């Protein structure tokens, strides 16, 4: 909470640019402005003083980039001095005002796109915030943020290590996009969920360009806005960067900006005390607009927000091991591929949100949930529904999630609410409320309604508004109790009417135990949608569900001009010809042409007549050999090589399944460890080599990218691995390749090492002590052949 006595009653004014002012005072290009807190304290303080003279109330300490990555051991002294200088300027001016501990982005890209971990970013921000609070800052301003994930790390760090209020402002481009792709709606959802005290925009744009974005933000935000635009856009003039909006023009536009729901305004790059002074004169009398709770039920990912309540959405239910032996096996083996394929397939089928449930008794659910959330977010921008009964797994998922998730679920049991509500307060989330409690699931709709009512009331006591709850009145199968559909629907209507909250159903339970379940499911979905269902948890790949949903939206006037319906079904009027079966294509041909589907079919067909190993020897291996030779000869190219490899992989899968059934296993050719060396975070080349090595029957241990030498050596020694393949893309990481080889020579003298990557050459490879330089993936297969012959 921001405790200032006039907050919301009159407009507060932030100061303007610090950097531009320091440059005028002699700060050189490339010099770190924060260091001037120590080297030129009087200059920094006088700039604060000039802004106070112009009439501002809120000073940003000169600590924007004062993080450990940039300042190392000077971090804390620079922050202490920065906050102190602002405090001293305030004391000297002798009037009311507040000092913001100013925190900018780390300047690094976060994993998985970059090399800074979420936890690493968190630590940098926590150190800054703590130092700022110790030095006497009144609040924290997180500004110029362009990555929602980094911003989440920052807000959590400030919340967990200080008691200071938080204001967060982001930098958008003129089209309302963040550098990392998010939009205003996704940003507002995240920040409201995390519980900051005010949010807004700064930098990047001048006041004119900021106006439409501020308006959009004001419309959806339930928090006060803070707007700190630049003095227009920067442009080079001679050797200097200048901003094109002068004080008078700036001030005039700030009047308009201030009326868009701002409780505080100020300036960013290029603004001066004069800009601010004039703006304050014109804006002083503006009374801030009261901020209304917009009551939006919204979840988000890094890139998009999904609003519940107006137009029903589909929540994909397929990522759930119940009844899926393959997913169970994949989860046990720590293999994420199956799950990622499901995620993408459901998105293609039109899901709006994906449920993620990885609960299996024999796995560490919290760890798997954390990993699954991160991995799924690397292949889809759909918001996720974190589905678990384990509060530890729920917290793990919520913490690493990039955005504001749905969580599934809380219920009327006291214990459940006490576990889930604090997590919602901390991380922000919309929660599914199951209408059950210590006594079980009530048989009556009234009973279920009363539980929902109790949960809504209890949530309010925790400070969680009802817009953050979505009630599930529990559709249970009509095969055991025939009135369950009616009870659930009736309860849902009561909930909507009397509590005014959004609703959800796990739709397909309704038909459990009945034949042709799809028919019942689709009919129930229609009934529920008609009764006002907001989120249907379904298999979006099930055609009749999809059709019921699309038809409903057209009939209910939710699909304007039936455009979605027409787009989806318009070109399907004519019955499609049944897909041609490529009966003529044998396995070798399919592999040669890189046709995965056909290769799998051909392998299945071949298994009816031949022994699995015979298929491998007589068809797969020769085909692969030919592809490899054509590649080496330069008549076939990388995409084709890979398509053939993928086709062969599919066929191998079929063959191996048969072998496993027969209790045998394909004899492996030997074990190869592959890794991209420490410091290198790019591993596509290594992945290509891996696929080909696997194709040729090697068992590949893939340690991934950025792998420390010790980790490689440890694995090689414990498993006595005879061959290691190392990849490096940058000249700067070849030394870590050399270190890895040296350590292997010392601890695993039996092990051969092949190296590859853009910067390596035969000579270079010899210099760092490798046994072989492999110029491409086929070369690694050939060398492996030599080693294992």
């Amino acid at each position, binding site marked *: 909470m921001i405790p200032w006595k006039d907050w919301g009653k009159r407009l507060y004014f932030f100061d303007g640019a610090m950097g531009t002012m320091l440059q005028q005072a002699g700060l050189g290009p*490339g010099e770190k402005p924060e260091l001037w807190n120590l080297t030129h304290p009087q200059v920094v303080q006088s700039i604060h003083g000039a802004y106070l003279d112009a009439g501002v109330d809120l000073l940003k300490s000169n600590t924007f980039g004062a993080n450990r990555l940039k300042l190392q051991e000077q971090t804390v002294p620079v922050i202490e001095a920065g906050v102190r200088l602002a405090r001293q300027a305030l004391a000297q001016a002798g009037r009311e005002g507040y000092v913001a501990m100013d925190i900018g982005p780390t*300047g690094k890209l976060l994993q998985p796109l970059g090399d800074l971990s979420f936890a690493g970013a968190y630590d940098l921000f926590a150190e800054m915030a703590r130092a700022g609070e110790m030095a006497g800052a009144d609040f924290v301003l997180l500004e110029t943020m362009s990555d929602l994930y980094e911003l989440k790390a920052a807000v959590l760090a400030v919340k967990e290590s200080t008691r200071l209020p938080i204001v967060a402002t982001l930098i958008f481009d003129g089209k309302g996009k963040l*550098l990392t792709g998010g939009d205003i709606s996704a940003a507002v959802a995240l920040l409201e969920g995390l519980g900051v005290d005010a949010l807004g925009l700064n930098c990047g744009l001048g006041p004119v360009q900021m106006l439409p974005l501020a308006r959009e933000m004001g419309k959806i935000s339930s928090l006060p806005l803070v707007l700190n635009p630049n003095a227009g856009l920067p442009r080079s003039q001679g050797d200097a960067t200048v901003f094109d909006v002068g004080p008078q023009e700036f001030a005039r536009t700030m009047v308009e900006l201030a009326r868009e729901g701002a409780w505080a305004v100020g300036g960013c790059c290029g603004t001066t005390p004069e800009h601010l002074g004039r703006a304050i004169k014109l804006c002083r009398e503006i009374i801030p607009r009261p901020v209304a709770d917009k009551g939006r039920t919204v979840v988000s990912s890094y890139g998009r927000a999904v609003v519940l309540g107006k137009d029903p959405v589909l929540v994909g239910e397929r990522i759930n091991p119940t009844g899926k032996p393959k997913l169970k096996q994949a989860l046990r083996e720590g293999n994420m591929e199956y799950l990622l394929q499901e995620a993408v397939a459901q998105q293609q089928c039109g899901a709006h949100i994906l449920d993620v449930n990885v609960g299996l008794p024999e796995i560490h659910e919290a760890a798997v949930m954390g990993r699954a959330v991160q991995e799924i977010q690397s*292949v889809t921008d759909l918001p996720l529904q974190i589905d678990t009964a384990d509060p530890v797994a729920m917290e793990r998922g919520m913490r690493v999630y990039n955005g504001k998730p749905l969580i599934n679920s809380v219920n009327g049991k006291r214990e459940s609410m006490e576990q889930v509500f604090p997590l919602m307060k901390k991380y922000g989330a919309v929660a599914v409320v199951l209408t059950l409690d210590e006594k079980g699931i009530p048989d009556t709709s009234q009973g279920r309604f009363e539980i929902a009512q109790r949960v809504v009331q209890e949530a309010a006591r925790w400070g969680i508004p009802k817009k953050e709850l979505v009630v599930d009145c529990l559709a249970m199968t009509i095969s055991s109790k025939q009135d369950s559909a009616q009870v659930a629907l009736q309860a849902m209507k009561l909930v909507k009417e009397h509590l005014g909250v959004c609703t959800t159903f796990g739709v397909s339970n309704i038909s459990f135990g009945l034949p042709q379940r799809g028919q019942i499911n689709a009919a129930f979905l229609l009934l529920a949608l008609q009764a006002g269902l907001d989120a249907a948890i379904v298999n979006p790949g099930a055609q009749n569900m999809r059709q019921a949903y699309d038809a409903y939206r057209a009939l209910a006037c939710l699909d304007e001009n039936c455009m979605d319906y027409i787009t989806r079904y318009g070109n399907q009027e004519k019955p499609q010809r049944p897909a041609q079966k490529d009966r003529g294509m044998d396995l070798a041909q399919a592999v040669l042409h890189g046709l995965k589907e056909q290769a799998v079919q051909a392998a299945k067909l071949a298994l009816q007549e031949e022994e699995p190993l015979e298929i491998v020897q007589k068809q797969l291996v020769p085909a692969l050999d030919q592809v490899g030779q054509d590649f080496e000869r330069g008549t076939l190219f990388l995409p084709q090589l890979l398509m053939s490899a993928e086709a062969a992989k599919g066929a191998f899968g079929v063959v191996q399944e048969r072998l496993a059934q027969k209790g045998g296993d394909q004899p492996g050719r030997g074990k190869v460890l592959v890794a991209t060396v420490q410091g290198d975070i790019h591993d596509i080349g290594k992945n290509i080599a891996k*696929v080909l090595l696997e194709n040729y029957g090697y068992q590949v241990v893939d340690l991934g990218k950025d792998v420390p030498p010790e980790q490689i050596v440890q694995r090689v020694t414990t498993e006595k691995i005879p061959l290691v393949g190392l990849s490096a893309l940058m000249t700067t990481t070849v030394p870590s390749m050399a270190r890895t080889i040296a350590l292997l020579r010392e601890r695993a003298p039996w092990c051969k090492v092949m190296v590859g990557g853009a910067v390596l050459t035969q000579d270079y490879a010899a210099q760092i002590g490798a046994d072989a330089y492999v110029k491409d993936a086929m070369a690694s297969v050939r060398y492996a052949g030599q080693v294992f012959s």
Partner: protein
Amino acid sequence: MVKTIKEALRYLGYRGQEPDLATLHLVETCMEELEGQVQRRSLWERYPLTVGGSQVQLGPLRIQSGQLARHLEECSQALLFAATLGVGADRLVQKYEKLDLTRAVVLQACGASLIEAYCDRRQGELARLFEGEGLLLRPRFSPGYGDFSLEYQRDLLSLLQCPQRMGLTCTEALMLLPTKSVTAVIGLARESARGNCRSRCSQCQAENCPFREEERS
């Protein structure tokens, strides 16, 4: 065939051979998907330049590099230039690395082709801009070319304030992130260069690089 597609095929190992229809289709769809995800951004600043021996003084930045010095002979000023396709391109490659490696590899090549084309386009625009002052642009010269050490990547990024202004950063190992990005020094001279305008590949030490372009005659 569109130039960016041709260039993507070259990154995939084609040396003028016609791709089969399936591959061509794949490259085309990848290009389309990528276009939907890239956010092109670029920045430049102009600095005074002095060159002495193998020392280059570029505004506040002192660079030790004989090859860069030779490349900038007769230039009195230079531009620092940075361009990126944004994180969208990387996100797409990462996605398909987990789902469809062939597509990831092709997207990678398409991205490389698009960033080069974008840099060329921006450089063309800059050339027209400086024409008015009677100044000609030299080809881009980037950290990592020849003896222009990658270590200067950090200085270039911080001088141009790339992280804040365009979301361009680098790793500890000095790899640019987003990966489909370029930083470069572009010399400004009164006259066109004499004999030091060879293709950029010819100045690079990675002689075995599969993407190395043949010397242009």
